């Protein structure tokens, strides 16, 4: 039915790789399906994202929501993809404008009430985002000092 996209960063040691987060909102039973080699903590993102979206006053569409983290063969870990996944879901369901979300790199873990929590490795992630040509990176407030080190 509709696609939402944004970007995040996968960290491996101190090097980061830009990851495209794609969300397809399709017909089917209500489910969030996360593909693209997530580890256990990233796999749990779907439950955090669902609660965070609902408790922020929006709704995850009651259909099959497929989230792909590309490059799909690159192993990904941690909770820093939560914000990107949530915004791609909201863009795919037409709640936030797709163009603005697609151009931005998003980092951050979500609390169940929708607050954005700081994550580890923001400095190398922002460096990777800058090196890939990204102009805007959205980071958790608690990580702003670290992110500001990158010019």
């Amino acid at each position: 039915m509709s696609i939402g996209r944004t970007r995040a960063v996968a960290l491996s040691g101190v090097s980061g790789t830009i990851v495209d987060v794609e969300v397809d909102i399709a017909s089917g039973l209500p489910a969030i399906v996360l593909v693209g080699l997530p580890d256990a903590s990233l796999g749990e993102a779907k439950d955090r994202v669902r609660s965070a979206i609902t408790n922020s006053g929006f709704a995850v569409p009651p259909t099959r929501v497929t989230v792909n983290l590309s490059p799909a063969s690159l192993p990904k870990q941690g909770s820093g993809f939560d914000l990107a996944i949530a915004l791609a879901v909201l863009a795919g369901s037409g709640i936030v404008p797709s163009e603005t979300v697609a151009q931005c790199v998003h980092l951050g873990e979500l609390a169940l009430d929708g607050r954005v929590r700081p994550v580890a490795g923001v400095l190398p992630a922002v460096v990777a985002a800058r090196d890939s040509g990204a102009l805007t990176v959205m980071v958790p407030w608690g990580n702003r000092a670290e992110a500001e080190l990158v010019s």
Partner: protein
Amino acid sequence: MAHKDVLGMWGEEVAADYLATEGYSIIDRRWRCARGEIDIVVERDGELAFVEVKTRRTLRFGHPLEAITPAKFSRLRILAGEWCQSTTRSIAGIRIDAIGIVGDGVLVHSLDHRAGVIG
């Protein structure tokens, strides 16, 4: 009969009527075997659809189709296989459909038909 069963029966009637108006032929209703029950079996253009119907009064506790968990869905797949074994019909293709109804037992507020759902 419990209230929820009355509502469920009503939902199945609504779903069967809807499928008939969509051009499906009803092949079977409330088919039971030892492993469970299939709500509705329909056929259109040679393809069989096994239909699970979920009815709720309100959306307060989520969408009715959220009640079809992965475990429930795998049971539907097994039941579909059992039904196919029990018939002499020639079967060209099968799929599993889900119908979610929100209504109070008299008025239908919404009916959501998802054809060919996967786990």
